[in-house]
């Protein structure tokens, strides 16, 4: 038995027929081809699959596609607007908040949710908020910095990036 659902993903509305057991993450990756959302586990622990459903961070492996019928979904691909990176994307880049990049989309989406609720989180609050996300590469040190960078930017404060921009040659 298949169900027809309608979802709006990154502003684009899709009507799709899905099996009831199809997970939201499978809909996003396999049906809609948005592979920025990753799958890192089968026990809802890693957070690599985090997206926003109606504005709230959700692990998309914990939800069936049919449950998302009528929902607004944002994935990491929908975060930047016209080539303008989201402050979190910029923060992760500037502060070297990623290495292999596999956990990154999920962590960015989780962090976006945190910053909506708490625009100036302390290090401890950030670490607690990331409880549902694993990163095996960075030891979280620079992830914390990246999120603080983004928070400052979003509050309109000046920030001094750690990383030097690559695209400047001879000066």
């Amino acid at each position: 038995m298949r169900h027809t659902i309608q979802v709006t993903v990154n502003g684009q509305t899709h009507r799709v027929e899905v099996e009831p057991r199809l997970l939201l993450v499978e809909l996003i990756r396999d049906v809609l081809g948005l592979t920025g959302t990753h799958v890192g586990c089968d026990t809802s622990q890693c957070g690599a699959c985090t997206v926003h459903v109606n504005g709230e961070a959700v692990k998309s492996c914990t939800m069936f596609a049919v449950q998302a019928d009528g929902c607004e979904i944002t994935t990491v691909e929908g975060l930047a607007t016209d080539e303008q990176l989201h402050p979190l994307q910029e923060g992760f880049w500037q502060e070297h908040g990623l290495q292999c990049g596999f956990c990154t989309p999920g962590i960015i989406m989780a962090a976006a949710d945190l910053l909506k609720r708490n625009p100036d989180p302390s290090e401890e609050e950030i670490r607690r908020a990331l409880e549902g996300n694993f990163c095996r590469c960075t030891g979280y040190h620079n992830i914390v910095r990246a999120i603080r960078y983004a928070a400052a930017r979003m509050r309109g404060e000046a920030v001094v990036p750690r990383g030097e921009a690559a695209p400047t040659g001879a000066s």
Partner: protein
Amino acid sequence: MEARAYIGAPIRRVEDRRFVTGRGRYTDDIVLPGMLYAWIVRSPHAHARIRAIRTEKARQHPGVVAVFTGKDMLDDGVGSLPTGWQIGPDMKEPPHYALAVDKVRYVGDGVAVVIAETKAAARDAAELVEVDYEELPAVVDAAEALKEGAPLVHDEAPGNLCYVWELGDREATDRALATAHHVTKLEFVNQRLIPNAIEPRSAIGHYDPGRDELTLYTSSQNPHLIRLLLSAFVLKIPEHKVRVISPDVGGGFGSKIFHYPEEVICAWSSRKLGRPVKWTAVRSESFVSDAHGRDHITTAEMGFDRDGRIVGLRVRTIANLGAYLSTFAPGVPTWLYGTLLAGQYKTPHIHVEVKGVFTNTTPVDAYRGAGRPEATYVVERLVDLAAHEMGLDPAELRRRNFIQPDEFPYQTPVVLQYDSGNYEGALNKALEMADYWKLREEQKRAREQGRLIGIGLSCYIEACGLAPSKVAGAIGVRAGLYESAAIRVLPTGKVQVFTGTHSHGQGHETTFAQIVAHELGIPLEDVEVIHGDTAEIPFGMGTYGSRSLATGGSAIYRALEKVKAKARKIAAHKLEVAEEDLEFRNGQFIVKGTDRAISFGDIALTAYVPHDYPEGLEPGLEENAFYDPANFTFPFGAHLSVVEVDPETGRVKLLRYVAVDDVGRIINPMIVEGQIHGGVAQGVGQALLEGAIYDRSSGQLLTGSLLDYALPRADDLPSFEVGHQETPCPHNPLGAKGAGEAGTIAATACVVNAVVDALYHLGVRDIRMPLTPERVWRAMRGLPTDGHAS
């Protein structure tokens, strides 16, 4: 106009734009037309004979295209997965087939593969494959496996013994320990770890019958090695008809070095079916099918003279190799372990004996550090404990034994010749950063208030970039360990760099571009680094053992020298001067003492439009280099951690972590720091949280998912305090040594030392890892901490 000094600058990574926007391309992201999906039927038993496999029902399931068993592959001539490291002439090397043929030997051993039009169909049909098993008794613990009458994993390996390996002078060490003033002895388990790169392994076999060409996409750290093993040993098809692509790879930490059964299964079945076949692990499958790490049972004794100088070290280790020999498995607990047992100290006599043992568990191979964290754990735990036993400050005891800066090159009694170092310098810096003596006072005060604070040190050495190839051969590595690079300058002066190393988080696309842009005096954005495709890159040995910059970077440097030499010829011709009259500065060849110059871009154009060109010189500007290092590199450092133990619950809180590392010349400090952070996190993970547990009677992996296996989370760790010391490697052109494993190598012993330091006055000498609250609580009360199982 000064060209920018890229070497040494914290350039933000060029690869990150794609990752932060969700446009990375990992193997599982790739969808090919007509692609099929594989699901592997795995053994639920640790040890069983396969009586029969019935696949009819699965075959009839809608969407199923084929079901294959190990016998199908064997009948088709598919060979065993070879191991790449031979330990002694008598090493037992039983066959390892991609799918088990006669027996299954661990929980997760593959027995059949179902290939279907959709993932769901393959998975559903896998349930319909009926395997008739005759269960056999299993053994999961290496010490148990050596006992008389233990279940036999392979008929080829009596007593489950793969090899016995020794290094050093047994008699001299025994004598030294017999006459020592003080001997510190520890018996411990360096527990089995499960690497858990966050991207699960994935492979796609894609056979093109028209061109008789096989492409394998795989989440691998070393595509060329996979091509060699797959073509020459396993599928026995011509190497030039196989292309291996490792696209973006989501972390490896060693676990993606090896040639895995699933790569063979996807490649072979794609040839059979003429359609692409994809397999991607689900995490609980990764737990049983990714090579594990560590798993040593060790007895170690370190002897000291009256002044606290080390007189000898004796080490006996039983290493669990798992059910089959993975690609580099035999070398990890031997050459990568025994040779590091001198640590940073003048230890006149060392003897180590290692027994490599088969058990009914997932194969064990290199995991971040690979042998070196285990060696560091032996040495640093013993030194630290000895200091406590002898009533000396742990920093002071180390100081008395350090190899001094003027003693290099230093020949250890276990083969290695250290080329350089300043161990006391690194320790002093770490102590300073932490304000060590103040910490000690605070510790005292805290104790008076009933708080348990501990300070741990770990002074480590590692040997990276196993080399030269001659040495690799002498110690049984069935490969050379050089690296290749190609530099292709395009007519517009843009540069493509091809490296045989592979980046899966290390940032080569940035670091290597920095080297090239720096050396050629061109903007960084004019350089593109290409890796991970055997069709594009001349050859490569891949990325592991912290080798990429020291070997791969040096190969790039050598290729650059050739490019510059040819460019100089062209410049001399164009400027009508002798080559010696030119200097290369800021991306220009300048006639010395004049302002006459030609830019690198103009030379590139001339090389491809050679109208006015040196007589006899070939057009084009592209050079290859193979770099075989003269020696290992020897990064080292001193780490310090501060912990607080809750006396009520035994919970350990890591309060501070200070790391001072000397990884040689640094190209990008931001990337190096990131490597240290991540390495430390994994080392702390082993000390406090992680450990694979097998049920001793059933052989089931009890820690088989992220629910049961504790990976460090953000709130398990503090921010790290990272410092550097820079002693350049004297024998490679970059002076680089390697940074990828340093943190892991140091951190485990560092944190355990801190916890024991907090509790030593309560009579605690050692606690079994991971230091869970329960074990710490028990240790404080004098109860055994072995817990159940491993």
